[in-house]
């Protein structure tokens, strides 16, 4: 067990624990302001889209040239499968198979 890994695990566990429990503990007594609810309702999409953007367009922190970007190519059918099947598992499995085939054909 490495110290820095332990700190990351415990720190991220704490910042995950608080949003899980605090509303349940407090909200039986009070409610969030309307703008707060609205702002929070956009967080899931913002954060997921940001992560998708980073994963697809950047490679090692640098812009990944579009002409050789296999991940971006694989993302198109992956998006379609997600929209069509609405299954998280199906999307992950199809995505993995597609990138495997693309790398096999292109490389």
């Amino acid at each position: 067990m490495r110290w820095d890994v332990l700190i990351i695990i415990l720190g991220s566990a704490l910042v995950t624990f608080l949003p899980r429990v605090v509303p349940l503990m407090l909200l039986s007594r009070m409610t969030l302001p309307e703008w707060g609810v609205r702002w929070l309702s956009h967080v899931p999409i913002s954060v997921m889209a940001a992560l998708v953007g980073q994963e697809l367009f950047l490679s090692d922190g640098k812009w990944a040239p579009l002409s050789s970007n296999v991940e971006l190519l694989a993302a198109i059918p992956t998006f379609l499968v997600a929209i069509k099947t609405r299954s998280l598992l199906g999307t992950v499995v199809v995505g993995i198979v597609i990138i495997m085939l693309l790398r096999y054909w292109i490389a």
Partner: protein
Amino acid sequence: MREQNIRLKAEAVIEGEETFLAGVKDCIPTLLGYLSIGFAAGVVEKTAGLSITEIALLSICLYAGSAQFIAAGMMAANGSASAIIITIFFVNLRHILLSAALSPYFRHLTPVRNMLIGSLLTDETFGVAINEAAKRKRISEKWMHGLNITAYANWIIANIAGAYLGQWIADPEKFGLDFALPAMFIGLLVLSMVSRKQWRLDIVVGISAVVLAVGVSLVLGGNIGVIAATLIASTIGMVIERWK
């Protein structure tokens, strides 16, 4: 007097405190999906260089699918501890909404017992619980623990099993396993949009977040990119909604 007693008893039966076992049963439909995602997470964590002990601790303490993928990815890329923790904070901030949405159904419990309910809250157990809530005014504490603990045990087992398998995969990229992470984000992104049915606004917010994340990452580094994009894109969404 006796008649009243009988009626009170009958009402208690109808209200029906659901049992722990009923919660376990209601969890079953979600198990297979999360067994596989948990397994994939275990493989990715192992190939990112984490030990089996670290992976077990991660799934026991953190217990969050996308966050564990991110932690693994950022650790493999040598991200700083503070950047990883802040990113995971934003990724898991959505639990505020889930926790808040469930709170009316647990008003009969003390704050400490509510804390125990919330500590194992996930997207899936929320999904099952909110369906249960549609049927009754309050959710049984035992039923919720049955649901939560089943999902939790399933996740930890899947993670460790994946970690053991990951030891034998020398080159995960060859099998496309590194793409499990972006594919899962794509899946979660699409699923959250599908359930909201406000495509135009969500697509504007999503594209803003992608542009901001890429732009800010290129200028200031990837650590700040996701955080800045989340804050700004959510604010854009809130402002557009207000002006409409």
